[in-house]
């Protein structure tokens, strides 16, 4: 499959995300935030980093880039989109995912290998995991505290839309230990930790992150 990775000014992990896409056996297509078309990709990854310097709010300005306008309408039509870290923030700002990400409750940037439990496999991004599977991937964020109203959280839980939860410690104060969520359809996933940094032995804590990039083809489209 052709998987697009979007570079915004200030993106940090776009090259690692491209590499993860290739390690998973797909073609990585470089997309630029000012582009107006999606180059016929089968899926899109919004990488981590500090797009637009995190000015205003994380992801707030990126949301209005020309390519994001295309991505929002394609995602509403079913295009698989994975937002990692800053990408997750952009998806929340775009209202493709509910809730928001605010500054860590401990006011510090956190960087650690984080154990997670994969809670929902009803998405092409997580279908290669088993429900309840525990994985370890790097986590690095300053504004990764997931917040949403109690009603929204209850709805997410009831519909099985919490994709991953923090285990051992809640590193950033996220409500209900939420590390990632998906939309109702399952094609849009936002994740605060970084699976793209755990796809090859010898680089990072292992290869537990690779499953996100395997992207189960049968579920795409």
């Amino acid at each position: 499959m052709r998987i697009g990775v979007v570079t915004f000014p200030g993106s940090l992990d776009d090259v690692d995300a491209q590499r993860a896409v290739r390690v998973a056996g797909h073609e990585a297509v470089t997309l630029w935030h000012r582009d107006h078309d999606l180059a016929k990709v089968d899926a899109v990854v919004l990488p981590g980093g500090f797009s637009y310097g995190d000015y205003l709010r994380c992801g707030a300005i990126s949301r209005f880039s020309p390519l994001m306008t295309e991505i929002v309408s394609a995602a509403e039509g079913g295009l698989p989109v994975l937002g990692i870290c800053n990408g997750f923030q952009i998806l929340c700002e775009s209202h493709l995912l509910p809730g928001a990400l605010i500054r860590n409750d401990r006011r510090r940037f956190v960087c650690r290998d984080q154990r997670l439990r994969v809670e929902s496999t009803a998405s092409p991004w997580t279908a290669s995991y088993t429900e309840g599977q525990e994985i370890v991937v790097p986590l690095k964020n300053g504004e990764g505290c997931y917040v949403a109203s109690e009603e929204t959280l209850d709805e997410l839980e009831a519909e099985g839309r919490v994709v991953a939860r923090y285990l051992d410690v809640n590193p950033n104060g996220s409500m209900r230990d939420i590390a990632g969520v998906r939309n109702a359809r399952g094609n849009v996933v936002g994740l605060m930790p970084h699976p793209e940094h755990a796809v090859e032995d010898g680089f990072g804590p292992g290869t537990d992150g690779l499953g996100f990039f395997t992207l189960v083809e049968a579920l795409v489209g």
Partner: protein
Amino acid sequence: MARVVVDVMLKPEILDPQGKAVHGALPRLGFEGVTDVRQGKRFELEVEGEVTDERLAQLREIAGTLLSNPVIEDFEVHVP
């Protein structure tokens, strides 16, 4: 030319770590009696011509779409 001010504050129920950090610094500086601090943002927008109802509606749209995130923030538009 006219100036319109938009104030953006986190909703009361949203944790404000920056405000807490500022609050925590006050006693260290010897300032007592401040029981809480919440940090927000102030935007000053210079607009062409008079501030008509139409202009105000447009500014409210700007405040609600770009300047604030309605999931976590409230905004107020003031014409000083």
